[in-house]
């Protein structure tokens, strides 16, 4: 389990992370969502002890990220957003280097399976690999020890859709075996599809936390042209321009149909509200 409590980080006078609090449970995949510079990587780097928090604390499986970092890394896999490993080493050498720090033979065997899965040629030098293949190396190195905790900073950047799917299949398997997974991402559709919960961060502050299982019963966006304005407790008017009104509805579908019938519109469109729409709405409100 990852527990982050009131984390704050200053770079000089510049505030990077402000009072960040969230947790990731065992067996859960948490999407850590936010625009560039929101504080995602800073938070992750604090969790891995690359940088120190200015205040607040965080624990991973009950161990403090500052004082017990070495113990934490025995059971934690990490995929950085920008993978910059030793350019002169081959993929195989990098895997063997990692295996030295984990259970050697089991690690190598699992790494071989993952290389095959992600179609990664281990004889190539790291410096000659494409961005996507570099990312695969980091993924293989992080997953091969079958860690109890996985921290992935934008792991699908540069990966093709097929390998993205393979990665999430693997993450799902690991989570079902009890792994705690923190996944930072820009890609809202992958967060919506594969994560259990999402935490939204902007300018270093947590904006909201969404249970993505709840979003399976999606809210609807209803665009109505003409007719009367609909007034109902489950109906929220988002936009009104000329004769067009856009509502957000979170109620029963039959009630919605009845409401639309009463309004007598010239036309209407009903669509499920995506996580992306929520994200945009959330950030737009924050801007205001």
């Amino acid at each position, binding site marked *: 389990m990852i527990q982050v409590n009131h984390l704050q980080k200053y770079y000089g006078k510049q505030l990077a992370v402000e009072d960040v609090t969230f947790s990731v449970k065992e067996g859960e995949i948490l999407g850590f969502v936010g625009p560039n510079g929101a504080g995602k990587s800073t938070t992750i*780097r604090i969790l*891995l*002890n*690359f*940088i*120190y928090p200015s205040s607040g604390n965080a624990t991973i499986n009950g161990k403090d990220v500052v004082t017990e*970092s*070495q*113990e934490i*890394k*025995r059971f*934690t896999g*990490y995929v*950085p957003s*920008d*993978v*910059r*490993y*030793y350019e002169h080493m081959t993929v195989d050498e*990098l895997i063997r*280097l*990692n295996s*030295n*720090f984990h259970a050697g033979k089991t690690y190598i065997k699992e790494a071989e399976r993952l290389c095959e899965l992600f179609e990664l040629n281990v004889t190539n030098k790291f410096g000659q690999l494409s961005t996507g293949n570099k990312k695969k190396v980091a993924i293989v*190195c*992080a997953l091969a020890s079958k860690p109890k905790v996985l921290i992935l900073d934008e792991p699908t950047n540069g990966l093709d859709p097929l390998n993205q799917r393979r990665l999430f299949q693997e993450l799902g398997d690991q989570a079902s075996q009890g792994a705690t997974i923190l996944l930072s991402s820009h890609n809202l559709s992958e967060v919506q599809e594969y994560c259990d919960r999402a935490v939204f961060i902007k300018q270093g502050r947590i904006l909201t936390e969404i249970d993505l299982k709840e979003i399976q019963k999606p809210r609807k966006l209803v665009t109505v042209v003409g007719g009367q304005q609909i007034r109902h407790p489950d109906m929220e008017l988002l936009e009104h321009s000329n004769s067009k009104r856009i509502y957000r509805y979170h109620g029963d579908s039959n009630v919605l149909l009845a409401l639309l019938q009463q309004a007598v519109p010239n036309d209407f469109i009903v669509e499920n509200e995506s996580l992306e729409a929520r994200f945009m709405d959330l950030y737009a409100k924050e801007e205001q």
Partner: protein
Amino acid sequence: MHIFALELRNSWKSTVLWTIALGLIIWLMLAFFPAMQSESMQAVAGAKLDSIDPALLQIFGIESLADFTQITSYFGYVLQYITIAIMVFITQTAVATLVKEETEGSIELVYSMPVTRTQIFWQKSLAILASFAMMILTLYIVTNIGYLLYSEYGLVESLQETGMFYGAVLFIGLIYFSTGLLLSSVIPSSRVGTAFVLAVVFGTLMFGIMGSLIEKLSFMMYMAPMEWVKVSKLMNEGIRPIELGIGVLVTLISMLMALFIYKKRDLRL
């Protein structure tokens, strides 16, 4: 000791190249020594040396051992330039030790493994020192072969004399190494490392020159380790206890400060 092995692996190419280059220079200079013993060459060298101001001779460390027909004087002259090159090498390597991984980003791989910063620090330091020791040992062997082939020295005599020279170089190498390591823990990027290397090596060289030329500035000799190991001085008085004390103190303080800073600061990614 996986970080130790990794560091050795990452630094061996540069160490080998420097060792080969310096070894070749030493070899060529020693091979030239028999020619220095001929009467005509003695006359040419003597005339040239006589025309140089004594103060300049002092700067070049040949004030009291100007007889190039003697292998000790001749090699001493060569060794002071070799020493500058060795100090550039060890300072440069030390400056890169910690900060290079951060500038290039590979620290994200190293430090995501179950190691502490203290382990990274000591294992990297030991690896660099092991490389340095190997370099000095190789140059020591090359020099001794040269001594045996091109001078009239016997094996024991040669081993003893050059052993003293290289022992002293190894000692001041530790001072430059620890200073470089301290710089490595504070500079923002390895890209600015070269400027600091040149400042440290040639700055201390300048201290030595000023200290030896200007009476009032003679205290600067204590800040000029390369002055401590000039062959002419080593042959007369060796390394003085005060120099030994300063060297050990600077090395210990620099290394402990470097470790403290490296442990306490954010890694730069």
